[in-house]
């Protein structure tokens, strides 16, 4: 079974809060200096699910990711886990694309890869938590879609997908090819093996540009986005400690109540 997995790079969620910075002006997250991005953990689980299918049925796993050439380390991580090929799609024109544009770019890249039986995405990216791209890819490619999958199997030439719902499961069958978004119930992704890391480190990651995937530039970038981010901010939180000392407890209590009323707390 040939599988395409779409993976995203996100800022390392393990960085200390002090390294997380917003640029209020440009409404963007400032990449933490000196700490490389990592693969979105949900996408890592999508790679894991793909590998389980490969272990059982054989085939080829291709990993697609949007970003810069530096993003190749994300693709290489998937290769180290056992994926066969990684492709980075990059272009200045893609910058500031919204979920629709990103899904469009990935759909074009999927078309270029050509042969596939299944497209896997993580359920959402752990940076903005929108969870849109997988669904829009299915729409773009006119393919059946199952979201929040815990397991995928093959039965009678169809895909059997176990979908997580509150307190239970749904099991669907869908024709091949299909798009499935993968939930965290898949469990821990495998650790890369020694030889896996070594061979991934030596592999070249092809970089595709807008021309390689015949993308219509009017559908990508900031200008194609139909919604506009007007504000991005972390609410200011102030902590203050004031000790109220009065002769008697009663006096202190009254003062406390007054202070709380003044502060608008009660």
């Amino acid at each position, binding site marked *: 079974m040939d599988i395409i997995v779409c993976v995203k790079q996100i800022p390392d969620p393990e960085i*200390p809060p*002090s390294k997380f910075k917003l640029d209020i002006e440009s409404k963007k997250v400032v990449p933490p200096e000196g700490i490389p991005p990592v693969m979105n953990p949900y996408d890592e689980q999508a790679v894991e699910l793909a590998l389980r299918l490969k272990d059982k049925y054989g085939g080829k796993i291709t990993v697609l990711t949007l970003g810069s050439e530096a993003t190749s380390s994300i693709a290489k991580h998937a290769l180290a886990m056992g994926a066969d090929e990684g492709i980075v799609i990059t272009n200045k024109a893609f910058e500031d694309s919204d979920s629709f544009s990103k899904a469009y770019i990935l759909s074009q890249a999927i078309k270029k890869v050509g042969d596939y039986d299944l497209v896997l995405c993580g359920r959402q990216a752990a940076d903005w938590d929108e969870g849109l791209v997988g669904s829009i890819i299915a729409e773009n490619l006119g393919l059946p879609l199952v979201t929040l999958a815990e397991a995928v199997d093959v039965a009678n030439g169809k895909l059997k997908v176990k979908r997580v719902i509150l307190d239970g499961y749904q099991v669907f069958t869908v024709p091949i090819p299909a798009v499935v978004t993968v939930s965290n119930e898949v469990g821990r992704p495998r650790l*890369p*093996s*020694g*030889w896996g*890391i070594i061979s991934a*480190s030596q592999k070249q990651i092809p970089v595709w540009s807008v021309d390689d995937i015949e993308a219509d530039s009017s559908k990508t970038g900031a200008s194609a986005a139909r919604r506009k981010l007007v504000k991005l901010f972390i609410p200011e939180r102030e902590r203050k400690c004031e000790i109220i000392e009065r002769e008697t407890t009663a006096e202190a209590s009254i003062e406390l109540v007054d202070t709380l009323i003044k502060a608008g707390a009660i």
Partner: protein
Amino acid sequence: MKQIFDAIVVGAGPAGCACSFTMAKAGLKTLLVERGKFPGAKNMWGGVFYGPTLNQLFPSFWQEAPVERYIKRHRLSLLTKDASLSAEFTAKKFGKVPYNGFSLFRAKFDRWFAAKAEQAGAILASGLQADDLLWDGNRVAGIKAGGDELPSSAVIACDGVNSFLSEKAGLRDKLSPRDMKQGVKEVIHLPRNLIELRFNLSGEEGIAWEFIGSFTRGIPGGAFIYTNKESLSIGVVVQLSTLAENKIEANDLLEEFKQHSEVATYLAGGKLLEYSAHLIPVAGSAMMPALYTDGFLVAGDAAAFTLTTGLTLEGANFAIASGLAAAETVIRSKQIGDFSQKSLSYYPELLKKSFVLKDLKTFKKAPHFLENPRIYSLYPEIACDLAEKIFTNDGKPRRKIWKLLRKSMERKISFWQVFRDLKKIKKAL
């Protein structure tokens, strides 16, 4: 895909990167294994890096390597609870190429250095931990990592102070807390212009400021402040065993140090960016493991190549130099097709010729001498007390400095004891 490497280097720090770079450049099939997600990921080091050895490898490296500031000023302060006495040295020479030292962050620097090794042809495997050695009889024949066996003609352990591999190779016992210092460090953000104003620096100049005194409560050790581009590295380094015996936490000492009136003014308004802790091997030649066995070499911190003179604590340049010597040894072994213990004995020969073992021999007695608690409390006290007597104008007739010194020492220490300590200084330093 499976292959046999000429050399596997474990640990992509300065020793490992220098070693891999040199071997790969000479055409050896070299694998550089790093357990962190990327080289430098596991590193908290933010100190002064002395450049000459690296400058030989990459002339004018500071133009491309991620350095913070070049060290123009060196300052030493003796602190008591409410006084301080400082000496500063600066030279025009330190402000010109090839600069003497740099402040830098190893998290960035190691990535740059490892990329150099990769460009030279070494294979960098990040996120891979060496779990064990691979043996062929009594010969080290590779490593086990990530569930796989990775064979090689030589393994070079550059895996840091707790070198697990040299222990596995039977070259050393577990380390004793007496041989180690614990370092705790904070990185504090301060705007560039404030750093330059407060520390009297301009442009890319930096200061390395060392402290000894009351804040370590008599525990052998000291504190430091180094200036980075837009932050300060501030920390204390204290002997681990005494710390444990007295049930004192190193971070309490750091807090005490930060609150000292002389120090606090320099930090005011700063924002804490990160906190970290690390062990530093300080016993010098006394704790050095055997440096090689069949198919196996140890370099850098793993070999305890750290120099403590009391005023400076150097490791990175020793690491690079030992990494280079290890590389040269393996290249030679490859040429003659012999990786046996006998062939690898070329390694200590090279180290003896370089500054690595020479410096460590010169300062062989320093680590023991520096355990003397008087250095950390009594002498700073006497010095500050004397200075106070000299500078105080209390309206009474002045006395000679010699008499003041006698007064400062009264009931604290005898001249005979000071004389004995001075004799020890002469021997050790």
